[in-house]
Each structure stands twice: as C-alpha cells, then as structure tokens.
C-alpha cells in the first residue's frame, strides 16, 4: 500500500541528491546546487510520508493488489463537489490581484473582496456538504 509510490519518489529524490552533490562538488556553483538540494527534499519529503503511511496502515489497498476485484472496493469512494461557483470567484480575485501589480493598487480592492468571499463561500459550502 503506497509502497511503490513512495519508492518512486524516494528514488527520484535520492538521484537528485547524488546529482546535486556531484554538481556542487565539481562546479561549486551555488544557484544550481541549492535548486538541486530543493529537488532532493521535494522527492524525500512526500516519499518518506508515503512510506510512513504504508508502514502505519499495514494492509493492502484494493488498487495495489493484482487479484482485487471491483467488489473489493465497494462502498463510498469519496465525497465530490458537484458544482461550485467559488473556484471562479477565487480565480477572478487572483486575476484582479495580479492586475493590481500592473495597473495600480486600487485593483486589490475587488481582488481581495473576491478572494475573501471565495474563502468564506467555499468553507460554508464544504460545511453544508458535510463530507468534503
């Protein structure tokens, strides 16, 4: 369960770590060295998390078993929003906010109002839905 996923991320992270060490040790170039160090951690962080989760939960998920039948995963998959206006409102707020960086600070007013409305609206929507 999640073992293969964690191994992929850990291997990628380890490769970036080795590559970064060779690069920095050979070329002494700090910019690229720091970015490869970041990539190393970005591989290890989720990789270890998934490995910890795999060790903690123990069992096999039906999607990780070769012999699982569809019925083995019967029941609720998850809760999904069917429609929501709030992503559009949040996206519009971000759009106005970015335009404010170009055309003037006054555009942050509609930007921030839309962004806050979206945060409140999406949270309230999730509470009404109950299971998101």
């Amino acid at each position, binding site marked *: 369960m999640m073992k293969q996923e964690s191994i992929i991320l850990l291997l990628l992270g380890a490769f970036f770590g080795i*590559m970064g060490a060779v690069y920095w040790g050979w070329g002494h170039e700090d910019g690229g060295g720091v970015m490869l160090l970041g990539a190393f951690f970005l591989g290890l962080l989720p990789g270890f998390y998934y490995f910890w989760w795999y060790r903690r939960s123990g069992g096999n998920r039906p999607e990780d078993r070769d012999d699982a039948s569809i019925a083995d995963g*019967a029941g609720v998959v998850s809760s999904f929003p069917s429609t929501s206006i709030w992503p559009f409102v949040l996206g519009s707020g971000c759009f106005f906010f970015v335009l404010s960086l170009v055309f003037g600070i006054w555009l942050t007013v509609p930007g921030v109002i839309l962004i806050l409305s979206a945060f409140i609206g999406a949270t309230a929507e999730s509470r009404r839905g109950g299971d998101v």
Partner: protein
Amino acid sequence: MTDLIERPLDTAPGDPHGAGDHHGHDGGHDDHGPSGILKWLTSTDHKVIGINYTVTSIIMMVIGGAFAEVIRAQLASSTSSLVTLQQYNELFTMHGSFMIYLFVGPFAFAGLANYLVPLQVGAPDMAFPRLNALSYWLYLGGSITMLLGFTASGGPAAFGWVGYAPLTSAVNAPGAGPDLWIGALMLTGFSAIFSGVNLVATIFYLRAPGMTLFRMPIFTWNMLVTGILILLAFPVLTAGLVMLYCDRHFGTHIFEVQGGGVPLLWQHIFWFWGHPEVYILALPFFGMVTDIIPVFSKKPLFGYKGMVFATLTIAALSLGVWAHHMFTTGAVLLPFFSIMSLLIAVPTGIKIFNWIGTMWGGNLHFSTAMLMSIGFVITFLIGGITGIYLASPPLDFFTHDTYFVVAHFHSVVMALTMGAFAGIYFWFPKMTGKMLHEGWGKAQFWTLFIGTQVFTFPMYLLGLHGMPRRMAVYPNNPSWQNMNDWASVGALIIGISTLLFVINVIVSYRRPIIAGDNPWDASSLEWFTSSPPPHHNFVALPPIRSERPVWDFNHPDKPALGHGHGTHAGTHPPTSADATKEVAGS
C-alpha cells in the same frame, strides 16, 4: 453541493446486466447540474474542465500561430517593412509565450490529462475538483493577462519568451507590457502547480481496485511523472518571476549588476524550470502516442516496463541538463551538462525503439490518429537527433543563437503538435460521442507533416550558414533569401493545415457520425463507459487483470497476445464508415 460517490458495479465478461448498464447512454454529464454559461462557470467535473482547457489552449495556438505567420511573412523578404523592428520583437516574444505557456503545456497536462486520467484509472473525478476548476480559471486569467499586453501603451513584452536579464529590467523594458507578461506567467504557473497536485493525488489515491501502478495506461504513467516534474520545476519559475518583479518595482538588484546582482542567475532559474518544462510538454504526448500506436497496430505495447523506466529516467535526468542552454555564457560546467544531456538520449531512444517494436509485424491501420502518431515519431526523431548535436559544446558554440537552434526546437514542438492532433482525433469520439471526419483529417495530417518539414529543414540550413535568430531584416544574401522563402512557404502550409482542422470540426458537428462507446476497439478503461461518459464516469467497471482491461473484457476468447504475435489479434478498428453503419442501423 456535494455528492457521495459509490464505487461502480462489478461486471464480468458476458454479464448482460453490467454490460447493458455501461453501454447505455444516459445523456452524459449534460443533464447534471446547471446548463449553459452557469455550467461553464460552476462545473467541477473534470471532463468539463478538460474540454474548457482543450478548447482555450487551441484558441491560444491559433493566436500564437497567427503571430508566426506574420513573422514568416516579414522574413519572406530580406528588407521587408511589414512590421517595425519593435513590433517584430513583440511578435516573436508573444509567439513563443503563447505557444509554450498557453498552448502546448496546458493542452497536454491540463486539457487531455484532465479529461482522461480519472477515466483511465477508473476514478469518478480528479482528487480535488474545486482546485481543478481554480486551475482553469487561473489559466484563463493568465491568458487574458498575456493578451492585455497588446493594449499597453508601450506594447507587449518584447524581450523573448525566455525573458533574459538585463533585457527585462525596468530601464530596458519599461511599461505595463512586461509586467503583464510576468503577471500572466505567475497565474499560469500556479495553475500548473495545482494541476500537478491533482494529477499526482488522483493517480496515487483514486485508482480502481486491481488497477496497480504497473497496469496503468502509459499515458497515465506519463502524467504521473509529468505531475511530479511540474511540482519540482514550476515553483522555481514562479519564485524567479517574483524576484524579477521586485527588481523592476521594489529596488532590489537580484538580476542587476548595479547593487551586486547576477544577471546569469535568471538564466539558471529560468532553465532549471525550462528544461524539465520541455519534458513536461513532451511526456504527455509520448503517453498519447504510446496509447494510440498499439490500438492501430492490433498488438499490445512492446516493452511496457521499458516505457515506464524510460519515462522515470527522463524525469530524473531532466533536472540535470538545464545549463546546456547556457554553454556559450562561459560560466557553466560544460562536461557535466554535456554528459547529462547526451544521457537523456538513451531513454528517449528506448521509447522510439518500443514504438517501432509495437508497429513491427502489427496489423497496421492508418487512421488519422495513427498517421499523426507516426508523424510525431519521425519529426520528434529529427528534433531529438539535432538536440544531441546541440548537447555537444563545440557544436553548440558553432550553432548557438542561430536558426539551427530555432529549427531544432520547432521540430520538437511541431512533433508535439502532431501528438496533440493524434490525441484529439483518437479521443474526440470519447469526448463528444462523434467521430471526426477521416478524409479531412488525413488532408490535415499531410499538410501538417509536409509543411513542418518544408518549414524546418531550410531553417537548419540557415543556421549552418550562420543566420542569427531574432532578426527582422537580414543581409540580401541570395541563399539566405531562398531558404527563408521556403521556410515561409512551410509556415503557410502549416497554417492551411490548421484551417483544415477547423473545417473538420465544423463538418463533423454538422453531419455527425455517432462514435459508439469504443469505436477503435481500444483497451483502456475510458473506452468501457459511454461516449461522452456520464457524470462521475462509470456505472460499471470490468475486472482489471492486465494493462488492457477493456480488451480482456471484450475479447475473453482472445487474451492479450505476446509481443511480436499480434497480427492475428482480431477485428480491424472500426472506421467512420462502420460508425455510419451503426447510425443507420440504430
């Protein structure tokens, strides 16, 4: 509003109840929730968002393509004054920006991937549907922001799509246009990061029972790796853009020599994003053709695990090649970047070998999707091999900033465009329930393929003859003039091919040929549900016992054949003529 989604029903080969259920057209997702403009604004369905992304990105391709046609019209004569020098700079900047930031990437990792990944793993939606919708709105906002550059008093950004410092400083690039370019990339950058999160989470957490990692279609595998690469690369670009904005407006000197900054740092940051980005753009199309070629070869994929290994290796190496764009700066570690860049040819070569291995001895059917896939392989091979030349510093010193480099990456991105159309022709029936017309499609393929070669080959020669890139006018040298004319003719043929595609879509909508659920007799899960699929995708799922679950279900008497024995695998893929018969019979 939220829906609790239960796992679809189990169904077995020969089970009339299960099969009957999933083949029933229940109106797709159109009957769910609001309709019209409100549906467009509020939908969190991955299929609606995927189509939104696809259509928007194709519009961006047409706009970016129009810029290219003006560029080539300007270059058709050595002393043309069709556009001013400043307008020429703006045009090539916007052409590159539209094509790279707003078309190729979003089309692949957010358009078709959004539509297909949940279907291919048997999931009801993406893992975070509202985040997915936000991704699209950020992308649309970014696209509009980029377009707004044309309304700025000083015109849009004119420093090239790579935005090298110090060309981007407030002194060298004043005005709102460059800031709008920065803002657009910030919005689309966050959009890409959210898409990456969604892809990885969906593939890790929402696969159907039995859909182990090594049974996923290669397209989904490639989207997993693309998602990981997005998460590694895009934050670096977005951070670089914030630094650039601070340099321009807040008095920092990160990329400016005055005050102790380092202009070269921008190139490191940009290409640390930019070269993985090449694979972020390419891997989805590798995945598409890897799914398409076996279907029209009537064989299982040759070397499934080799393909997965090659994709992961490309991802790993892609973070160690960024400074091969910077060889001529004289300030990078040449042997390291040369070795890493040459190494990446190995997994790419494995892929090309496996595509040919899949076709070898197969029962080939040259549909438009297959022709586009073969065109992709050939054109990508040309772009890839010339890329190997450029990975060698001595050759790069000779050709850097010449048309040879322009030709190299246009071979690559035109190959990706063929991959994009392969994907459109293959999955259009699933998305709409209608076939695209094969006759118009083949006309489009041949114009696109021939136009691409007529367009790129003279540019390779121009580069070897020393013509620098980004020149609006050039010396009246007969050989340069002649080759530029040919390149412009090629660009015109490519433009005609795009027009043929638009005509095809209109014709196919006006005189629809109903596709059915699985018109190509394909093998991955998206072909098990109706066309278009219902809201939350599946009423029933087949048992998943191999990487070809729908083939196993539909052909229980013909289990997956071994590699190299595929010539007797069964029926020909239905053509549009067969689909017509289905309409007539229904």
